[in-house]
């Protein structure tokens, strides 16, 4: 069970934000092409930073609290999931605030 610690937190972040799609009609998953375009750049940039930082020794991730699946021999798969789930949660939050408050974000259709 201890090995599911990090994955469990990721699941909390995912399900803790995904319900907004239904309750607040964020329509983020429905606009999946736009979502994939938005997620693709951050995941690449931050995974590279992460791999470099682990290789350099800036930080380390406890192998006893992760699944043990490592990309490139050093990056726990949870880290890759993290850099997809967290930007997704932030976009859902942004659209959730717009859904409730109606404040413009600059991407509304031109009149």
């Amino acid at each position, binding site marked *: 069970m201890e090995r599911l*610690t*990090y994955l469990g*937190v990721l699941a*909390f*972040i995912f399900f*803790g934000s995904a319900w907004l799609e*239904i*309750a*607040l*009609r*964020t*329509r*983020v998953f*429905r*606009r999946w*092409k*736009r*979502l994939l*375009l*938005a*997620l693709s*750049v*951050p995941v690449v*940039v*931050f995974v590279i*930073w992460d791999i470099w*930082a682990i290789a350099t*020794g*800036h*930080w*380390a*991730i*406890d192998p006893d*609290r*992760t699944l043990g699946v490592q990309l490139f021999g050093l990056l726990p798969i949870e880290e890759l999931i993290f*850099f997809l789930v*967290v*930007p*997704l*949660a*932030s*976009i859902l*939050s*942004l*659209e*959730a*605030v*717009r*859904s*409730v*408050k*109606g*404040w*413009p*974000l*600059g*991407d*509304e*259709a031109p009149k």
Partner: protein
Amino acid sequence: MTYTQIGILFVVTVVVLDLFVLRTRLVTRKGFWVAYAIVLFFQFVTNGLLTSLHVFTYADTAIIGNQPADDGPPPFFGQGRIFFQPFEDVLMGFSLCLLAMALWVFWGRRGVQRTPMSGPPIWRRSGRVPTAPTGTDSASPGRTGDSESTT
């Protein structure tokens, strides 16, 4: 470079991207800051848990604070830590989320799935008017003929 320096560099770079390259200017929008406040609260909770459990450990030379030598949790607050996590994690979180949100808005501005817009919450009855100025409900309940099919 240390984690501290890279974190600051990332924040500055992403803010410049938002303001001058993508021209999304999210940092000037109230909606962005409210959404980021929600994200930051959950970062403190989730990342605080992971750092207090030593799932993440940091080199003393990389951060302002230092990693405790024993098995106990790092400082809850102080010595460069905020809710157990090094404050540098806040820099990384901010740049990660602002970059993703700015790209989301950028592609919307470019016309990639600009619609269907978000809202309204399910407890508001109808009338998809995303930027309705005031009032909790639209005056056109039961409007039909939208291109999307609601489920």
